[in-house]
């Protein structure tokens, strides 16, 4: 179980490989990579601000919650901050478990909860200048699903 908040890019393949290296109890690894969308060169870069300290604390709490809900063998959250361009990776969530049902559920839970709980804010650069991205009701709805009957 680990959490990393960093300015640098990450290598999803290396991280996924590390989760299974030298072990034979992992039957399923699920992963989610989130990327910046936007036409290249249209100026739609963004800057991710975060709350150092609280971010790591919240991500660890989210991971602990997932570990309590599903039988996980390992999990990893990496989230970048700073200026990012279209096509850049933002976030990686990866989960290892004996079975795929737990691995899928936990991975989706982690990104859903992260989206509504981890203190990150996106400042988008657009043709009309910078603006702070507003939170989506849809994200709240997706996170809320996990509070209903499991």
């Amino acid at each position, binding site marked *: 179980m680990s959490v990393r908040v960093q300015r640098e890019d990450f290598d999803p393949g290396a991280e996924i490989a590390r989760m299974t290296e030298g072990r034979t109890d992992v039957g399923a690894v699920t992963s989610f990579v*989130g990327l910046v969308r936007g036409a290249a060169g249209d100026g739609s870069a963004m800057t*991710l*601000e*975060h*709350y150092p*300290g*609280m971010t790591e*604390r*919240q991500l660890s709490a989210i991971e602990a919650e997932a570990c309590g809900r599903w039988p996980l063998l390992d999990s990893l959250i990496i*989230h970048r901050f700073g200026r990012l361009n279209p096509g850049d990776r*933002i*976030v990686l969530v990866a989960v290892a478990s004996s079975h795929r049902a737990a691995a899928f559920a936990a991975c989706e839970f982690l*990104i859903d909860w*992260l*989206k*509504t*709980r*981890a*203190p*990150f*804010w*996106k*400042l988008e650069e657009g043709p009309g200048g910078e603006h*702070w*991205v*507003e*939170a*989506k009701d849809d*994200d709240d709805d997706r996170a809320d699903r996990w509070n209903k009957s499991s």
Partner: protein
Amino acid sequence: MRILYFAWLRGKVGTGEEEITPPVGIATVGQLIDWLKTRSPGYAEAFAQPGLIRAAVNQEYAKLDQAVAASDEVAFFPPVTGG
């Protein structure tokens, strides 16, 4: 008391971080907000829509009725948009 502001709240209050000493009687997050709003038009604007404000005390999410003390780190920010 250490107060942090993030995203557009920082722009409206004009700083990302400050040390303040609230007057006697400010005992909860809600009371702190009410007092901050009186400090300047920028603060008033930042906290004008309570539904758009999230608070954290010592890096944990907090509700309006949560107690705050002089040694606390209190943060205000809009709903998060990471991921």
